């Protein structure tokens, strides 16, 4: 039998964790419980439930930033007016994860800390240039998301530290944002490749800023800064798409796995961007 610990505050969490240092934090459990069931049955480390801690389960906007608690569910994010207004691309991506029941359980903190190359909230979080807030008994710290995620399943989280919030700056507005995911089916599917894109467009369609991030085509999210800069100041209709296709295909670094081949993922990555740019023609 495995103990299940349910702290009701951050203070209590760290007090309990000190007594059970081997406990595993669990938010939605949609990844962790699957993993535990398929792993060594003699592993009886306690579960440390995060969803009764108020700070971790709310979305706040009072500081001029949008702060999303780590144990906030994807359904809550999708339905939240402040997310829809300030980070619609995050709501879009969250809505394409799993199915409704999974989204009622799975959390943003879980998606971030699992650090799967196919984590669908990650490309939007990279584009929104969010910071993650981390807390341990020795204090709080903040890191840009791209410094937090180190590789597949690897993060900068230290032992005894938890992710408390994801902070989204509200200083910038983009006129267009899209998240597109290609999987084997529409729901309950892990991405073969995904593209998150945010543009600031003038009335004549000129891109004053472009941000692009691909998921599932590298160990972590792929952002092609050179290509982003190249798009700036240009109109989508005036671009050399063949050359952009080549740049994307060489810029991403996918692998072959059970869902798709690397070659297919390169093509899909490029095609997603071409289709998106063509849809922006004025």
């Amino acid at each position: 039998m495995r103990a299940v610990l349910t702290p009701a505050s951050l203070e209590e969490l760290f007090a309990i964790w000190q007594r059970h240092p081997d406990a595993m934090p669990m938010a939605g459990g949609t990844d962790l419980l699957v993993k535990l069931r398929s792993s060594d049955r003699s592993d009886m480390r306690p579960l440390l439930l995060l969803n009764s801690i108020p700070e971790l389960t709310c979305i706040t906007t009072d500081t001029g930033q949008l702060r999303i608690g780590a144990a906030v569910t994807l359904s809550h994010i999708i339905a939240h007016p402040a997310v829809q207004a300030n980070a619609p691309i995050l709501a879009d991506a969250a809505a394409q994860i799993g199915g409704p029941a999974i989204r009622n359980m799975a959390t943003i903190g879980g998606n971030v800390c699992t650090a799967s190359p196919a984590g669908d909230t990650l490309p939007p979080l990279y584009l929104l240039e969010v910071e993650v807030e981390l807390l341990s008994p020795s204090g709080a710290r903040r890191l840009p998301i791209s410094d937090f995620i180190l590789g597949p399943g690897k993060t900068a989280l230290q032992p005894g530290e938890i992710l408390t919030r994801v902070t989204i700056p509200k200083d910038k507005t983009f006129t267009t944002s899209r998240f597109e995911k290609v999987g084997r089916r529409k729901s309950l599917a892990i991405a073969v490749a995904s593209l998150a894109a945010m543009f600031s467009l003038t009335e004549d369609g000129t891109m004053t800023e472009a941000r692009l991030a691909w998921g599932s085509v590298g160990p972590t999210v792929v952002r092609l800064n050179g290509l982003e800069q190249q798009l700036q100041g240009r109109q989508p209709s005036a671009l050399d798409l063949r050359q952009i296709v080549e740049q994307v295909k060489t810029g991403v670094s996918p692998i072959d796995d059970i869902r798709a081949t690397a070659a297919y993922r390169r093509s899909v990555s490029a095609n997603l961007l071409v289709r998106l740019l063509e849809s922006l023609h004025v």
Partner: protein
Amino acid sequence: MSEITFKLNEKSITVNTPPDRRVLDLLREDLGLTGTKEGCGTGECGACTILVDGESRLSCLMVAAQLEGSSVETVEGLEQTAEGQLIQQAFVEHGAVQCGFCTPGMEMTALTMLRHDDHPSREAIREGISGNLCRCTGYVKIVDAVEHAAQEIRCCREEK
């Protein structure tokens, strides 16, 4: 062992169970409610869908301790609700049940969907049941049934 108190189909109960017991096993093995099915056991099929505080959840991916203080609805409680009866009737009348294994999860998903929106488009219904796999029907008859149940529920509400 832990003592866990929650509401199950409108009745308050207290169970003495290992806190890490899967909710699916608690319901089926310990409480004898075998209406909830285990399909994949990994959160990919929706057969084990129950409602917790009115929202759909997968009982294969929950531990008993998470139920403390909550209100749980399973397919056994479906016929105790007016909407549930209409959903059951619609599934029967539209031939939405073939082997029946996905039906409990499908109906619980329909219940929460129609409580939130009693006039969903066919597309919204497809989206709503997108986490519940059915290998028999091809879904058309299930969407027909949910659409019809929605219509019946609207009629009931208007009469009141």
